[in-house]
């Protein structure tokens, strides 16, 4: 059985590499279950039986053509971030009974985050395997974020004033809409599908995974709701 941490890490790397190649959820689930089954029968470690997870993933040739497009949750995630970035200052302004002010910094930050997300999604496996890539992107995002925040002060940019209630309502709707869109995208995507009869009878991962999948689309909306309560309590 794949009980050791090393084998679990091997399986994670294997699934990540297959996902990175755009292999479909059914094929990934089947290949992962085949490895688990073989390890249970042979008593070998994953590294011993299959070698490197990356090399093994690359050796498998599936009948279905890998899908190399961007994941379908990317667009709703970007919409949610856009909504959240404008909802937070707007609802804080509503709580204080003031209009909300934008300088364009928010749009710049959104662009930085959007580009970063696309880069991260396209290079996820390299980022997981080589932490300095993740650190480099993180530093670039933070650096550009700080620059975008300081630019209005340095350049003395004019502020755009808007009705905080209207902005909070519109961006709140965007946030909830992004949640529904994300949920639909998750429902339409396969994920890793374990073949029927392949799972071990004592498989305990299902319940946790289901809760995580159910919560994921609403994380930004939940965060916004908590911030809203905090903003009104602090006002």
């Amino acid at each position, binding site marked *: *059985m794949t009980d050791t941490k090393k084998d679990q890490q091997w399986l994670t790397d294997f699934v990540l590499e297959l996902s990175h190649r755009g292999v479909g959820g059914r094929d990934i689930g089947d290949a992962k*279950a*085949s490895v*688990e*089954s073989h390890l249970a029968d042979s008593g070998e470690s994953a590294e011993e039986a299959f070698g490197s997870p990356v090399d093994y993933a690359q050796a*498998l040739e599936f009948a279905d053509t890998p899908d190399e497009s961007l994941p379908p949750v990317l667009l709703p995630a970007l919409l949610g971030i856009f909504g959240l970035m404008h909802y937070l200052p707007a609802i804080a302004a509503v709580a204080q009974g003031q209009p909300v002010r934008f300088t364009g910094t928010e749009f710049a930050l959104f662009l930085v985050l959007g580009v970063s997300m696309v880069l991260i999604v396209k290079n996820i496996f390299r980022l997981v395997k080589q932490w300095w890539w993740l650190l480099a992107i993180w530093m670039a995002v933070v650096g550009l974020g700080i620059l975008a925040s300081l630019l209005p002060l340095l350049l003395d940019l004019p502020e755009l004033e808007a009705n905080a209630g209207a902005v909070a309502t519109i961006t709140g709707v965007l946030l909830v809409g992004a949640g529904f869109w994300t949920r639909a995208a998750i429902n339409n995507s396969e994920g890793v599908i374990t073949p029927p009869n392949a799972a071990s009878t004592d498989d305990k991962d299902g319940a946790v995974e289901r809760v995580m999948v159910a919560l994921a689309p609403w994380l930004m909306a939940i965060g916004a709701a908590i911030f809203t309560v905090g903003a009104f309590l602090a006002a």
Partner: protein
Amino acid sequence: MSVLKVLEAGPTYGYAIATALEEAGLGSIKGGTLYPLLTRFESAELVTTQWRAGDGGPGRKYFSLTDAGRSELARQTAEWQAFTTRTLTHLNGDTP
């Protein structure tokens, strides 16, 4: 070819195929070698697959030879026999 030959006897799973090959004196076949081959057979429709529930552990993926797989086995066996005949003839110094 040897993998297809093991499957000729009936549906079986990966580890059992590796064990059968080892018992036949063909050496230890690692999963990293065997499963990519089985996946190619599956893509080429030389085998069909079926997951069967495991007994307290994970299930097992059973591979069955298709008609195309039997034809491929027959073709590769004939080619191999022709090759070994030619090679033996050459090694023995006989003229074909």
